[in-house]
């Protein structure tokens, strides 16, 4: 194998760097939602978001055709009392090389005014907007816990 010249290596590196913003540094796994009753106004989506980049990133917005509106919320337990509130303006921070778990009783995507019945086996597209990585589209699978 011929050794690459320094020029070629540099060019390759530049090309890789130019790939920033296409979401490739963000890995979303296990995106799922519980099958909630048809009469329920809202549902929740859970997933694990990994940031492979060496700078932190923020999940700022979410959207899905399956939801009238989709927002980031956090359930919190204080002295046995559960409350839930929308995540602040900065979104959810995911530190470099780290991950954030969206799960029952914690952070989650609130699917507000759901437009579809959440039936086990169905998948819906969810778009996640990151400050650095840009748009990432995932398939959320509806399944039992």
């Amino acid at each position, binding site marked *: 194998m011929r050794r690459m010249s320094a020029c070629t290596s540099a060019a390759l590196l530049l090309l890789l760097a130019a790939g920033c913003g296409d979401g490739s540094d963000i890995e979303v796994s296990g995106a799922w939602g*519980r*099958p*909630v*009753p*048809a*009469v*329920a*106004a*809202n*549902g*929740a989506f859970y997933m694990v978001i990994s940031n492979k980049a060496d700078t932190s990133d923020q999940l700022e917005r979410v959207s899905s055709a399956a939801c*009238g*509106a989709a*927002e980031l*919320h956090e*359930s919190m*337990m204080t002295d*046995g*009392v*559960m*409350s*839930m*509130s*929308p995540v602040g303006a900065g979104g959810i921070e995911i530190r470099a090389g780290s991950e954030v778990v969206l799960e*029952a*009783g914690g952070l*989650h995507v*609130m*699917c*507000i*005014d759901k437009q579809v019945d959440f039936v086990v086996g169905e998948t819906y597209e969810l778009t996640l907007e990151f400050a650095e990585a840009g748009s990432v589209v995932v398939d959320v699978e509806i399944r*039992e*816990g």
Partner: protein
Amino acid sequence: MTESPISEEPAPSRPRFPWQYALVAVPLVIAGLVFWWGYNRAQPHQFSGAVIQSPTAAPDFTLSSDTGPVSLSDYRGKLVALYFGYTFCPDICPTTLQDVADAIEILDDGDATDVQLIFVTVDPARDTAERLGEYVRHFDESFLGVTGTEEEIGSVATLYGIYYRAGEGSEATGYLMEHTATLLVIDREGNLKEVIPFGVDSDGIAADLEYMLR
């Protein structure tokens, strides 16, 4: 007559199959297992929630469901699992109701019919009896959902030490309810027996229900 030089050594004993050891070991093992099982069974059950030791009568109440009025006393003789929540809730309430439904699936059929879940809404403004009925029956056909006036809900919640309050949501959600998210278990005698916090899984809930049904 000369004795033939018979070897003085005793006839080499054939290696006996250790039946004699088995005869001793097997009963010992069986005894050990029986003791271990009995010991475990005699241990106090490890509850997943807070147990109320002294008999505390669960206060009776009557609220409305889509199949008519529901009173706690209607279910004397069964275990009643009481949960205060609301149908607008995307995360905690569906998770808890699913956990209870899964727990009931784990129980034997006989036990399963002796557990009654009652979901009391803390959001009577949005939760009509019809909506509640459809909502809870998604998780299990036997579940009951009840509502009432703000005053009626308030007084039942107070009787059970359940806190709830409307909090600010977002423009898209409107108000969101904060509420004590515990599962209250009332035994067959009508005493409030256990308070199970959010996060106990269906296996934990099933174990506690099964113990209380003994």
